[in-house]
C-alpha cells in the first residue's frame, strides 16, 4: 500500500510543474506591460513609469528567467520587499477584483464551497439511487425511461437548465431567488451582531441561532444546487447502473437469492456495497463537473463565488486573475484526483497489487 501511495505522490510534482509551465506559457504570450500586474497593483499611466516597472521586475528577461521569478518572487531592490512568486502564495493583482488575486479567491471561495458542499449530497445520492433503480429493473420500463432521461439530461446545457428553473421558480412563482442572500439578511450577516465563523452562510446562521437567515440562505441555494447536481445525475446513473449490472451477475448474488433473501436485501446490501467500489473512481470526474459547473451556475444565478469571478475577469480580459483562478482550480483537481486514487487503493486491494 505504501509503495502505491509513494508512486502516486511521485507523479504529483511532475504534474504540478507541468501545470505551472503551461500557465506560464500562456502568460508569456502577453506583452511585458500586460504582465506587469503580476507584481504591481496600480500600473501608472505615465510613459516612463511603465518602462521602470518592466525594468524593475525583469518583465522582458528571457522566458526561463521570468518563469523562475514568477515561481519564487522578485526582490524590490529599493525597499528589499519581495513581490510575486506563486510558491510564496502570490498570484499577482486582479484588475477586476481591485486587490490581490489570492485575496479575491479567499473572499469568494467560501461561497463556492458552500454551493459545492450542498450539491454533493443530492448529486451522489440521487445519481446512485437512479442507477440502482435502473439496474434492478434491467430492460423494464423504468430502465428505458431512465435511459431516455439520462440522454436528454446530457443534452441540456447548464445555462439553459439554470435559466429555465429561474424562469419558473423565480420569475413566475417567486419561490427561490437568485444571488446568495436577500438584502435584509445580507445587512445582518455583515453587521457586528453576526459572527462569521466559517464564512458559509447556512452554517454561520445556525451557529448564530438565526434560523430566519438560515432559511433565507437555503432558499437562495435551492436552484443553483439543483442546477449543479443535475449536471452529474446522468453520469452517476450510468456508472452505477453498469457497475450494478456487473455485480448482479456474480455467483454470490445467485447464492443470496437462492437462500431466499428478499430482493430488497440482495440489492441494497449484497450488491450495492460491492457495486459502489467502481463509483469511487469517478470522484475525480465529479470534481471536474463541480469546478466546470460552478462557472456557469454562478454566472446564471449571479452568485458571488469563484466561478462567476472567473467569468467576469475573462470578459474584461483580466488575464492575470483568470490564470490565477485556473491555476488554483487545477491544483485542487490534481490533489482531488490523488485522493481518489489513494482511496481507491484502500477500498479495492486489486488496484494496489497491480
Amino acid at each position, binding site marked *: 500500500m505504501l509503495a502505491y501511495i509513494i508512486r502516486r505522490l511521485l507523479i504529483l510534482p511532475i504534474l504540478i510543474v507541468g501545470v505551472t509551465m503551461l500557465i506560464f506559457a500562456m502568460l508569456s504570450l502577453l506583452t511585458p506591460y500586460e504582465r506587469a500586474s503580476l507584481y504591481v497593483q496600480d500600473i501608472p499611466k505615465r510613459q516612463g513609469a511603465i518602462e521602470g516597472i518592466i525594468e524593475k521586475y525583469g518583465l522582458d528577461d528571457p522566458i526561463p528567467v521570468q518563469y523562475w521569478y514568477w515561481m519564487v518572487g522578485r526582490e524590490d531592490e529599493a525597499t528589499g520587499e519581495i513581490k510575486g512568486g506563486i510558491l510564496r502564495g502570490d498570484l499577482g493583482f486582479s484588475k477586476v477584483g481591485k486587490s490581490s488575486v489570492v485575496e479575491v479567491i479567499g473572499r469568494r471561495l467560501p461561497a463556492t464551497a458552500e454551493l459545492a458542499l450542498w450539491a454533493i449530497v443530492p448529486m451522489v445520492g440521487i445519481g446512485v439511487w437512479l442507477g440502482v433503480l435502473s439496474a434492478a429493473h434491467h430492460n423494464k420500463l423504468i430502465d428505458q425511461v431512465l435511459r431516455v432521461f439520462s440522454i436528454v439530461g446530457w443534452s441540456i446545457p447548464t445555462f439553459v437548465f439554470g435559466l*429555465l428553473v429561474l424562469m419558473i421558480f423565480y420569475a413566475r412563482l417567486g419561490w427561490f431567488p437568485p444571488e446568495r442572500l436577500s438584502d435584509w439578511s445580507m445587512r445582518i450577516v455583515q453587521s457586528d451582531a453576526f459572527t462569521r465563523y466559517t464564512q458559509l452562510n447556512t452554517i454561520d446562521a445556525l451557529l448564530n441561532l438565526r434560523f430566519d437567515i438560515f432559511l433565507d440562505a437555503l432558499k437562495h441555494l435551492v436552484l443553483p444546487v439543483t442546477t449543479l447536481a443535475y449536471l452529474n445525475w446522468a453520469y452517476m446513473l450510468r456508472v452505477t447502473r453498469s457497475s450494478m449490472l456487473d455485480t448482479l451477475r456474480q455467483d454470490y448474488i445467485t447464492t443470496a437469492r437462492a437462500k431466499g433473501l428478499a430482493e430488497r436485501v440482495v440489492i441494497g446490501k449484497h450488491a450495492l456495497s460491492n457495486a459502489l467500489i467502481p463509483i469511487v473512481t469517478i470522484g475525480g470526474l465529479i470534481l471536474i463537473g463541480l469546478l466546470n459547473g460552478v462557472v456557469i451556475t454562478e454566472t446564471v444565478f449571479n452568485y458571488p463565488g469563484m466561478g462567476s469571478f472567473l467569468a467576469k475577469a475573462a470578459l474584461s480580459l483580466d488575464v492575470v486573475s483568470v490564470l490565477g483562478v485556473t491555476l488554483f482550480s487545477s491544483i485542487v483537481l490534481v490533489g482531488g484526483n490523488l485522493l481518489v486514487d489513494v482511496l481507491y487503493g484502500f477500498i479495492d486491494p486489486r488496484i494496489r497489487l497491480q
Partner: protein
Amino acid sequence: MKVVKRLLTNPTSLAGILLLLAFVIMAVTASWIAPPPENARDPYMIPRDGFSTEPQAPNEKHPFGTTEGQYDIYYGVIWGTRTAFRVGVVITIFTAIIGLSIGSLSAYYGGEIDEVLMRITEVFQAFPFLLAAITLTAVLQTIYGRGEAGPLMFLAKVLALVTFGQSPAEPVDPVQLQLLTGMLAIIFFGWMTYARVIRGNILAVKEFEYALAARTIGAGDLRILFRHLLPNAVFPVLVIASMNIGSYVLTFAALSFLGLGAQRGYADWGQMINFARSWIPSLADHWYIVVYPGLAIVLFVLSWNLVGDVLRDILDPRMRGTRGAV
C-alpha cells in the same frame, strides 16, 4: 454497412438521425427560410428591427420574437444551425487529428517518447476543461485584440481557412476572429481523450495474433499499420469521436453564453441566450429569449447523443462516458 443497418433499425438512433437530418436541411436552406436583408454585409449577423431595449414577444413579423436590441430570434435560430455545424465539425476534425497524431506516435515508438507524450497529456488533463478553455480564450482575445499577433495569427488563419473557406492572404474579419479564439481554445484542451484511447487501442491490437500473423508472413511495417492496426484501433475511435460534435457545440455555447465565444448579434445560439441574463426578473414574460435558442441547442446536442449512444454500444463499449459535461 452492418453498423449503418443497426443504426437505422434501432428506434433511438433512428430518432437521432431524423432529428439530425432536420438540422441539416435547416442549415442548407437557411437563405430561403430566413433570407438575409438585401444590404447585409455578413448574413451571419442577425438583422435588427430598430434599437429599442425591450424584447418583443413573438408576433407576425418576428415569429420567435426579438431580443434586447431587436435582434430577430427566428433568424438567429436558423442561421445558428450553420454556426453550430461549423463550430462542431471543425473542432472535432482538429482535436481528432491532434489526438490521433499524439496517440499513434506514442504507441508506435513507445519508450521515452511515449513517456514524455503521455506526461504532457496528463498535464493537459490536469486542467478543468471549461476553465482552461475560458482562460485560453481570454489570453487569445488579448493577443488578437492588439492586431499584431505574430506567429499566432497563423493558427487563426489556418482555422479561418477550414471554417470559413477564407483565403489566408486576406486579413481575418474581427467578428470571425472572436469566434475562432473560442474554437482554438477548445481544440487546444480537447484532444487528450482521443490520444489516450488511440494509444491504448494500438498497443492492444499490436499484441493480437493477426498482427503477429501478418508479421510472420512477411508484411511490412506500413502494411501492418494501414491494413491491420488502423482499421481496428483507430477508425472506430474516429467514428465515435465524430459523435462528440454535440458536446463541442455545448462547450462553445457555454463560452458564447459567458460572452467569450461569438460576438454580440452573431447568429449563435449561446450568444442569443446571453441576452436573457439582463431580463431574469421578467423571464416569465420574456421566456422566448431562452426557450427558442435553448430548444435549438438541446435538440441539436440530443440528436448527436442519440446516435452516438447506440453507435458506442455497437462499436466500442469502452468509450462510454468520455464526453465532458458542461
